[in-house]
């Protein structure tokens, strides 16, 4: 059993073990949707919500259903199904109650289904043997960390509108370079809190 308090796990998941900048999960939507600050923030908010909820739901399902029936080998497929179903539910909910946000997010909302950070968080939670409270803290922290990273990236990319990037480096290449330097900077927090 992991003894780290849930609050520490939350903070660590934002800064020291940032799911994007330390584990490099969720890169695809990070690179694709970070051109504008508003879109990036919308997607970040959606990821925070989905990550927190699916981590908790997956924790319950894993320990209430899969472990008692000794079906842990099904975890991948079950987790993916839960995430897909949950994103569907969120999509319908958002469309019904806040159509403005729904149209602002567009295709990015269903794309959260295939964001590897979401599945990654559920798997980390199993590997690190978190309790329910810890899982909730980790899910929320990982979501906040991901949203922070994409917001920073969007800011930098907006500023880079003034840059004169050489042709071979335009587009995804320069975004990867920036992500690399951001990850190096975030290494400064390494060793501050250990959540392993």
């Amino acid at each position, binding site marked *: 059993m992991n003894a780290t308090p849930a609050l520490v796990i939350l903070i660590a998941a934002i800064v020291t073990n940032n799911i994007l900048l330390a584990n490099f999960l969720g890169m695809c939507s990070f690179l694709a949707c970070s051109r504008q600050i508003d879109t990036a923030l919308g997607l970040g908010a959606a990821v925070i919500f989905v990550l927190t909820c699916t981590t908790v739901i997956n924790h319950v399902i894993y320990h209430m259903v899969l472990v008692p029936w000794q079906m842990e080998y099904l975890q991948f497929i079950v987790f993916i199904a839960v995430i897909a179903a949950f994103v569907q539910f969120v999509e319908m909910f958002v469309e019904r109650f806040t159509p403005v946000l729904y149209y602002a997010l567009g295709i990015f909302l269903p794309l959260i289904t295939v964001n590897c950070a979401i599945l990654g968080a559920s798997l980390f939670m199993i590997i690190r043997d978190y309790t329910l409270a810890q899982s909730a803290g980790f899910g929320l922290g990982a979501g906040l960390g991901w949203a922070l990273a994409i*917001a920073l990236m969007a800011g930098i990319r907006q500023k*880079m509108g*003034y840059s*004169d*990037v050489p042709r071979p480096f335009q587009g995804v290449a320069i975004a990867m370079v920036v992500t690399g*330097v951001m990850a190096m900077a975030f290494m*400064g927090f390494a060793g501050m809190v250990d959540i392993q």
Partner: protein
Amino acid sequence: MTARESDAAERPGAAPEESGGLFGFRFWEFFRYQKPMVRVLTATLPAMGGAVYFFGWRALGVVLVSIAFAVLTEWSFCRKRGEPVSTAVFVSAVLYALTLPPRVPYMVVIVGIVVGIAFGKEVFGGFARNVFNPALVGRCFVFICFPVEMTVQWLAPYSGLPGGFARWARGADALTRATPLRDFQAGESVAALGDLLTGSVAGSLGETSAVLLVIGGLYLLYTKTADWRIVVSCLVGAVLMSTALHYSGVTAVPGPMFTLLSGGFLLGSFFMATDPISAAQTGTGRWIYGFLIGALVVIIRGFAGWPEGTMFAILLMNTFNPIMDHYVREVQQMRKARAGVG
């Protein structure tokens, strides 16, 4: 007037043309003259002199190797764009060299400066278009790739006269000494504040002497090359944070004087945080930027695994700047709109 000459004359900030030159090499056609950058170079001279005095002439060797490869890297990119090499590349190279430990192998110097200039500056389109401080991108890269060369081999400084001015470098069997920050982290007795002021402690080439750095820094402030708001807010941030933590009983954080004088904090806050391009662009943003650098230095030194946090703090704030500027501008516009309506 040939086409090239008229081009040079029309370029803003171009220095007066020298005719002929050595082997037909016209200095200010190859390099772009940038007055603020020349001032920063002047301001690093005391610290560079200190580096030679404390660690021998090899320090100058490190600086020159760094400059040579920085110019080479920038030139290989600039050639494609048809621009001259900026004077700023000298500043990046010198500041980078001053942050290296005295026994750093030349290989490491070269790798770092090439990565810093190429991936910290040139891939963004060269001078004035970079997001991160190129010197720190280079240093961070070698810091992570070569931890032994960058963090273990410290040297005791020379003392007395002529000090390092008569020597090349201490040999491999020379006495090594831990830096004050490392001593503090290990819980051993640390250097006296007086030694930190003069700089007769172990550390990176240009970071040890607080007095020499402040002399250079004051020159930068006097000539308005560095923004005083950034320097002041950096110092205030570090003093407030370390005072609050130290006197509330956190033993991992040293007192404010030790925080200011030890490690690369003064070098970072006077010379690196004030880089006008990677710093925040709005006035309010600059206050926040500096303050958070100071606070982050204290936090990283105290709680993260590294003894020193100035480099990480500045790089982190470089990352935060664009979005901070965005929101500072947005708030300002909102206020202006509200004032217009009212």
